[in-house]
């Protein structure tokens, strides 16, 4: 264990948020909640980047009073990276939501386990139908 565990509260918070988002993504069977988990993970990354760009006691990187000294401003690079991340996460969320809507229209559920079971059942029905024993299986 390093020495800065007691001072890096922002980084610790972002790690915990990341893990919470990942648990959400893995454990929740609901597709919308999975997307929310992914967004929580994104936010954790932004918090981490913003925390890494901060320098104690310095101003935001907007030139004020004509001071052009690097010792007066915080690091501008993580801000640009966070911007890229936000745009990509918005796009990914929108596409995932659209795919979720398509799945819901097909299966009338958002539960991934149910979707898998229904898919398997439909496949089984299809095989039954193809093998010519349609009388016993219920068509779905």
């Amino acid at each position, binding site marked *: *264990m*390093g*020495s*800065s*565990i007691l*001072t*890096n*509260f*922002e*980084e*610790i918070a972002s*790690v915990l948020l*990341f*893990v919470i988002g*990942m*648990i959400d993504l*893995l*454990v929740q069977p609901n597709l919308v909640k999975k997307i929310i988990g992914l967004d929580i993970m994104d936010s954790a990354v932004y918090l981490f980047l913003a925390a*890494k*760009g*901060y*320098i*104690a*006691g310095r101003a*935001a*990187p*907007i*030139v004020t009073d004509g001071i*052009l*000294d*690097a*010792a007066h*401003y915080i*690091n*501008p*690079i*993580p801000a*640009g990276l966070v*911007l*890229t991340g936000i*745009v*990509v996460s*918005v*796009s*990914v969320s*929108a*596409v995932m*939501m*659209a*795919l979720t*809507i*398509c799945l819901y229209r097909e299966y*009338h*559920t958002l539960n991934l*386990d*149910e979707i898998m*079971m229904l898919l398997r*059942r439909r496949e089984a029905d299809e095989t039954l139908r193809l093998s010519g024993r349609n009388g016993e299986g*219920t068509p*779905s």
Partner: protein
Amino acid sequence: MSREDPRYAGSRWDKLARWRRGEYDPTAGRLELREPDFAPRDELQKLRKYAAQTERDDRYELGLDTRLRGFRRVYLAAAGLLAVFLAALLLVTVSWLPQFGDYTAPEHNEVARRYIEQGLEETGAVNIVAGMILDYRAFDTFGESCVLFIAVCCVLMLLRVDKEEDPHSMAAEDMSDRYFEPHREVILQMAARVLVPVSLVLGIYVVLNGHISPGGGFSGGAIIGTGLVLYLTAFGFERTGRFMNETTVKLLTVSALTFYCFAKSYSFYTGANHLSSFITPGVPGAILSGGLIVYLNICVGVVVACTMYCFYVMFRKGGF
């Protein structure tokens, strides 16, 4: 109450425990579908079809599959273990990072120093982040705008309701939109009358001042898009369709991206080959300074506003 107690069977706790094990369904036989009395016939038929489909699928049976429950238990345990392992790994890593706010950390290197010390002179932007993302790393931002455009195209492909192929479903979507969404609400309309102009003007201000103050194309475009979405929610598609339809959105987005591409290609070409260019940084702090940054901010703002509006329209109705 102990489990041996004769009163236990059939009690609330017993039912809860059996529900937890998946043996008891409190809704079985009691599920009632309330049909909204104001919905048109098509909607009622759709609801009935959905109810029949749910019954036929026998969703509740899925939870009784013991293999699935066993798998679920193992899966939860594995996920928990993985999460604990990852948290421990990342916490140990964080503990070795430089302290929060430390100015000697290795990421505050000569790149950041150069952006701050030379940025104003080379790009003309007072906002160093704007100068960085729209001048030094402008192709990166171009890629971001293209990612947004591609996301809009994907959502369009996935959610679009085709008018020619299926005129009924388009009309049905319109009807359900009218029955299940707020429509012509007086409070909403009054609030929108006040808020829409304010948010549009604020968005334009943030876009145009992106190189002088905090803000820029992405944040300003998001504000403009929110204003448009509020206007659409309050006044319906007939009003917004007059100026924001599919052709307008396509034209605006594609022309903004094309202008961005050509303008920045010219700037990079002349800059890299040390040719003279008519783009000058200008007087720092003026509204028309910073070379191309103002125009690129406007392009990005247009793309972002159209994207937000398009997402909302697609998710709500599946077409303009």
